[in-house]
């Protein structure tokens, strides 16, 4: 199978006095799709941000292809090119057109030829259903469209691994679907992805492994089947119950109320 692409060993992170990540261990292989789930504030987004050193870690080590990801490291910019990240708030650059948004980093950072990058960008835009929008500004696009542009922008740097931080949390249901479809097709292509999400059915469909975090610790690390059908810990069972609703207004209850039974 070869060496894992990304290794996270004994990672701890604190915000001041509070420990937000405790002794995190994770190995991600090429082509794997990992989904991180858990209650709010459990540290899933923080973990993602530590992977590309947007947050410094206080203990342990994160290595991409053997090279340590260090907030103060000299090679940080080069490493970040290999890690693509998509944010919940899209974070497109409002003063640039869609095409300019996508071309900026490949041209300035990777110093590639404009024509080559442009063609690739147009092809990607077409694949996500946004051809014709390349000269629009972000403010003219819907949330789902913006997020798809953000994904294309991350892809255009040819990253080894893609990080998704609750990318559909701010979107309307139809737009959620547009974006999730793109992510599903990326997974099908064999991309290595780490996804933080609340969309449980999507998680089940896309993941190779699901990790459950609570209060900065990984409580479970299993296949989707195991996670949803046979969760090992009580906590996970509780968590999954949050997504199940029992009818308050069941037909039986209604009949009782009207005195028929």
């Amino acid at each position, binding site marked *: 199978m070869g060496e894992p692409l990304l290794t996270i060993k004994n990672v701890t992170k604190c915000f001041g006095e509070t420990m937000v990540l405790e002794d995190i261990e994770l190995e991600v292989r090429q082509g794997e799709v990992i989904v991180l789930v858990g209650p709010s504030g459990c540290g899933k987004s923080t973990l993602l941000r530590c992977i590309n050193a947007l947050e410094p870690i206080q203990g342990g080590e994160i290595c991409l292809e053997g090279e340590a990801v260090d907030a103060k490291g000299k090679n940080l910019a080069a490493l970040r090119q290999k890690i693509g990240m998509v944010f919940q708030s899209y*974070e*497109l*650059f*409002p003063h640039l057109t869609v095409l300019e948004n996508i071309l900026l980093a490949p041209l300035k950072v990777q110093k590639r030829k404009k024509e080559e990058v442009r063609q690739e960008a147009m092809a990607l835009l077409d694949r996500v259903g946004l051809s014709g929008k390349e000269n629009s500004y972000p403010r003219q696009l819907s949330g789902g469209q913006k997020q798809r542009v953000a994904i294309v922008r*991350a892809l255009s*740097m040819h990253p080894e691994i893609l990080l998704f931080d609750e990318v559909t949390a701010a979107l309307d249901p139809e737009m959620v679907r547009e974006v999730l479809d793109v992510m599903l097709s990326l997974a099908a292509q064999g991309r290595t992805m780490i996804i933080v999400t609340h969309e449980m059915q999507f998680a089940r469909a896309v993941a190779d492994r699901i990790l459950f975090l609570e209060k900065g610790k990984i409580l479970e690390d299993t296949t989707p089947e195991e996670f949803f059908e046979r969760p090992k810990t009580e906590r996970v069972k509780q968590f999954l119950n949050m997504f199940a609703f029992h009818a308050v207004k069941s037909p039986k209850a209604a009949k009782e109320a009207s005195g028929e039974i």
Partner: protein
Amino acid sequence: MYEKAAWLTVRIGLIGIFLSIILGFFCAAILYYKVPVLKRIVTAYIELSRNTPLLVQLFFIYYGLPKVGIKTDAATCGMIGLAFLGGSYMAEAFRSGLEAIDSIQTESALSLGMSKYQVMRYVVLPQAISISIPAFMANVIFLMKETSVFSAISLMDLMFTAKDLIGLYYKTTESLFLLVIFYLLILLPISILGSLLERRLRHAGFGS
């Protein structure tokens, strides 16, 4: 007579404003990047220059400094005074422009592998400048208005000329009228330009 005076006002005003922009830029950068020692100096400078009138600053530079060996002619004094006062206002305008850019914009640019310099140059700065423009234009107008005090240090500007004419020739109505007209000529265009820029930016919007 008035034209020459007006020209002088505009010339010194523009140079002073230009210098204040440069000074303001440096100060804003120092504050934004929180450079250790300089940060305190800049903060002190801003408080000092914003809490004292331009007239007092001019008197100090023109009459006071020569006594310790620093002599300046009236015109230079005017420019320095304007730059000193204006620098702090410009610094505030630029700094709030820079800080209005959410840090997460910077983060998304960094995630693409851009260096800090590239992030500033291609992502933060263009947006910050657009956002600062209303405050910037307001400062320009304010500084241009402040040039009216130059007459106090015997600079032959518009106010000086007006005072002269009123004093010597008693042509009060005429000189006052011309005074108003000339200042309108200088200030109205700047003001209108400012409003236009502001309106254009509001339409451009800045949703992400």
